[in-house]
């Protein structure tokens, strides 16, 4: 009587808390005696602070402290880097010197007894700058492309792609420019910092609480165990809260300087300054093919922008190595260092941008060949991952195409551009592949079985929206054989067993596998303890003669109901606890190439007069291994598709070349899709059993849900209008003239 809960469309276990407002986000943890900090952001794009006039501000009502580089404590900034930080370079040391490296860099922090007074004081603080003109455009001819020191595969090559391109019967060779995007989750970054002696508690928005703990400990030169980071809920993040940004340091600094608990919430405008962004990328794709559509050459060159002080890298070109079969492939990845803040991962980092270029180029190739774009991909379906000669652990790309094509009605499409209309509107249908690596990072988890028959599971994981609370509860309930109501899952505290960063689509695989391992461990422990307890019916049994199903122990073959964990724990008189870890078997990792794949279909309508582009529907099919909760998975896909529509048609952070300021740092001017922009979105999951990726057989979904959407939209826009747009976002002015 195992409760089969994995695979069930359970509603969110935390849904009620969220919709009733009882879920507490970082800024909700108000502390006694709390005061308010406001960051002053640099209004120069490069140079140095020439003067600070803080006397007037210090005398303003309610002002407790004005901290600038002149009076800020020198912080140790001890060495600390996790995999979420750029491998090369050094993080911004905040308020440690007079240099201004980019527009919006924090240059002061003002603390006052109320938020209003702190805001007033911050806007009254006068700083003088010796300003220089920054360089913020990666296409600026003076900007050098550098080889990223941190990337393992800046250059890859198999065969001779350049020679084969030159002789290819059919060829596409184009460049792509994708705008910088800022994450813009609904919840702003927020930190409440409170010191007690040399111990610090941070209620802080984070997708990686154990890293925030270690990072802040290193910055302040205190032992990590002295720092506690708490973040039970996240109001969206998309990657912006993976790293620990300067505002966390500033909140802790201000709390220590004032001896008060300090609350610091970034303004929407400040969310465009120091909390990362999807880097603008410049790419070239060149594809050579035979007349039958088989690829003979693929060249993918790309460069991403980064700051002067850190080399942020992402997997821009890596999918080009494995997604299709091609004997001659060359990839090159470079960085262009600018006077900007360091970018960071944004949903589908690397792949979303790289796949856009590749899939648009492939669409162009399909027109050059006169071949259906799905058929083109079918003809180049690889047997193995040709980039490292390993079999795929599972790969369902063509199944995804078949499933999605059926639901979408691809057969109704006429291939000629501008050939489909609905009334006067031009209709376009486009497709693109999506892929993302199936990662599995080391994670731990703890489980406690309690006398009332319930179980408590804890991991220092996060839930930025995919439904971690729910899916992990399902994994624990399934493994323990308990109903979900009897499992309480907690996350978001750095003193819980460590989890990896909540990103890269690896939470389900990593944390889920650790929970499964801990649930198995606790049951094994329960058996060992139960057979030694003479008050229990299983007393005296051999450990391996005891079976545990449905949350109960019994001797194998015994028809009686056996004994529940609640009975056992009550009898023992104390909870049974276990902690376990999980990571990918290195041997399996050595043998298989592990990736998710998907196919995305989009229909757009373009107004031939005024150029408005609206997505009318989208259908995606994904091969992501086992789906733990179809309802959550569909929701996650919908969110990713919406993000992809934003990337395709709306989102871009525009920098003023004169001083590097984002001119649209405002939700009225930085466009993200609104409800009216979102049509019916469908996600289908193909049956895929992958015994290799991890014990749960899950491959992750967060990133791939966005990857593929933007090229499918762009290809649909071409089909509708005959206009090939290779820059994102595609706007009205891009399609006005053909």
């Amino acid at each position, binding site marked *: 009587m195992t409760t089969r809960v994995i695979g069930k469309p359970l509603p969110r276990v935390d849904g009620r808390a969220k919709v009733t407002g009882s879920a507490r986000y970082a800024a909700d943890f108000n502390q006694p005696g709390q005061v308010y900090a406001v960051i002053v952001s640099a*209004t120069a794009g490069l140079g140095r602070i020439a003067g600070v006039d803080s006397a007037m501000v210090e005398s303003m009502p309610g002002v407790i402290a004005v901290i600038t580089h002149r009076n800020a404590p020198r912080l140790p900034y001890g060495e600390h880097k996790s995999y979420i930080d750029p491998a090369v370079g050094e993080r911004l040391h905040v308020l440690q010197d007079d240099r201004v490296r980019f527009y919006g860099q924090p240059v002061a922090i003002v603390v006052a007894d109320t938020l*209003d007074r702190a*805001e*007033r004081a911050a*806007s009254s603080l006068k700083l003088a700058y010796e300003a220089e003109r920054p360089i913020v455009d990666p296409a600026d001819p003076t900007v050098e492309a550098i080889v990223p020191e941190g990337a393992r595969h800046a250059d890859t090559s198999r065969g001779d792609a350049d020679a084969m391109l030159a002789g290819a019967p059919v060829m596409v060779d184009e460049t792509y420019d994708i705008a910088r995007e800022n994450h813009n989750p609904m919840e702003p970054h927020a930190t409440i910092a409170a010191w007690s002696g040399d111990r610090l508690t941070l209620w802080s928005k984070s997708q990686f609480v154990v890293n925030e703990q270690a990072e802040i400990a290193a910055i302040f030169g205190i032992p990590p165990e002295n720092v506690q980071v708490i973040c039970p809920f996240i109001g969206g993040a998309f990657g912006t809260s993976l790293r620990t940004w300067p505002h966390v340091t500033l909140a802790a600094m201000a709390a220590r300087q004032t001896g008060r608990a300090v609350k610091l919430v970034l303004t929407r405008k400040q969310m465009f300054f120091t909390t990362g962004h999807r880097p603008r990328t410049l790419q070239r794709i060149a594809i050579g093919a035979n007349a039958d559509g088989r690829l003979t050459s693929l060249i993918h060159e790309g460069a991403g922008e980064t700051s002067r002080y850190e080399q942020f890298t992402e997997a821009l070109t890596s999918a080009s190595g494995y997604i299709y079969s091609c004997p001659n492939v060359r990839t090159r990845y470079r960085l262009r260092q600018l006077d900007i803040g360091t970018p960071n991962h944004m949903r589908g980092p690397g792949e979303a941008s790289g796949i856009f270029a590749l899939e648009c180029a492939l669409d162009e190739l399909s027109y050059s060949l006169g071949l259906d774009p799905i058929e083109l991909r079918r003809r180049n379906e690889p047997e193995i991952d040709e980039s490292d000669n390993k079999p795929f652990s599972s790969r369902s790309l063509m199944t995804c195409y078949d499933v999605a094509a059926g639901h979408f009605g691809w057969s109704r499409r006429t291939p000629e551009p501008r050939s489909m209309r609905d009334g006067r509107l031009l209709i376009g249908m486009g497709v693109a592949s999506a892929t993302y690596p199936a990662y599995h990072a080391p994670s731990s988890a703890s489980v406690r079985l309690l006398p009332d028959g319930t179980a408590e599971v804890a991991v220092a994981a996060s839930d930025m929206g995919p439904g971690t609370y729910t899916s992990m509860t399902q994994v624990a309930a399934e493994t323990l054989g308990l109903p979900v109501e009897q499992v309480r899952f907690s996350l978001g505290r750095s003193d819980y067993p460590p989890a990896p960063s909540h990103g890269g689509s690896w939470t389900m695989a990593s944390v889920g596998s650790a929970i499964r391992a801990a649930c198995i461990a606790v049951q094994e422990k329960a058996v060992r303890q139960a057979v030694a307890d003479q008050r229990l019916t299983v007393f005296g049994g051999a450990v391996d003669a005891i079976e545990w199903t449905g949350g109960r122990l019994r001797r194998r073959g015994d028809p009686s109901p056996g004994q529940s964990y609640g009975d056992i724990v009550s009898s023992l008189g104390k909870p049974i606890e276990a902690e376990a870890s999980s990571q990918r078997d290195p041997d399996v990792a050595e043998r298989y190439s592990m990736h998710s794949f998907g196919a995305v279909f989009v229909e757009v309508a373009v*107004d031939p*007069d*005024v*150029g*408005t582009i*609206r997505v009318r529907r989208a259908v995606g099919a994904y091969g992501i291994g086992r789906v733990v909760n179809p309802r959550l998975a569909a929701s996650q896909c919908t969110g990713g598709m919406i993000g992809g529509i934003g990337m395709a*048609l*709306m989102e871009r952070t*525009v920098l*003023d070349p*004169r001083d590097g*300021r984002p*001119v*649209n740092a*405002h939700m*009225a*001017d930085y*466009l993200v*899709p*609104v*409800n*009216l*922009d979102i049509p019916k979105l469908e996600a289908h999951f193909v049956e895929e059993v992958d015994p290799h990726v991890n014990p749960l057989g899950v491959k992750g979904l967060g990133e791939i849900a966005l990857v593929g959407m933007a090229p499918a939209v762009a290809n649909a826009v071409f089909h509708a209008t005959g206009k090939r747009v290779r820059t994102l*976002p595609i*706007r*009205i*002015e891009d399609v*006005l*003239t053909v």
Partner: protein
Amino acid sequence: MIPFTLEKARNAEQAIAAAAAGARYIAGGTTLIDLMREEVERPERLVDINALPLAEIRVENDVLVIGALARMADVAAHPEVQARQPLIAESLIEGASPQLRNMASIGGNLLQRVRCPYFRMLDAPCNKRDPGSGCSALDGLHAGHAILGTSDHCIATHPSDLAVALVALDVTMRVLGPQGERSFPVEDLFRLPGNAPHLEHTLLPGELIIDVQVPAGAYSRRARYLKVRDRASYEFALVSAAVALDIEGGQIRQARIATGGVGTRPWRMRAVEEALAGKPPQRQAFEAAAQLAVREARPLRDNHYKMELLPRTIVRALELAGEVA
């Protein structure tokens, strides 16, 4: 936000007296509060006029009268507005999200400040916010800015959709001030930036908008508002057009056209209107006439596309209006 005093006016006399002494009117507050939070607006004294009896919507001798304090949502939903002047209802729906429509008043809508990003950045020169400091948009990023009515001192577009419809419909407005009451066309409310872009309207100190008066015309019901933008809602117009047509016997007797997103004030397109008079309501005639819309336009580096988009928007709006039964 900078501290300020707030008083409530119980009648127009109190409100006007306060305003004449330097107070700023506040109704829905959707523009003013927003700008005060960013310290772009820094009033020391506010007078709340919401208690004044100016929210009525009524018809007098075929003239639709809309009180200055009527909310955008209420006006858009009003049966007389929808029946008599659908252009106004449509411009209001397109003009703001439901939350804003519930709060924003008609008078406040007409007086809303510009959406130029530099106007909202205290560390950027802006002649409108800080006279004489310079215009950041002129040499900066100005893809959304005006191609008509610009000066070397300001190129910001007027952001109101409603105002475009009212200018097309020859609406007059009634104001009350220390010197008494006067009426004038809504079109005359808006100044060109010239060399004093901080002076945006022609109201005298203390003057309070009482209502707008929309005359009935043969064109009133055959009217459409088309707003072109990159997303479907909650965005200011790249280009918009308010069009009203009087068609009889297969000929345009009279066309009323005003456009938004292109001018430093709502821009009446009289040359286009004249070119359409006597023509059949057909695309060829629309296209020929619409070309006149950009005759005097001065595009900048980033907003050249509006030279193409403006005539197309007018053509499409004319088609839509022509299709109204």
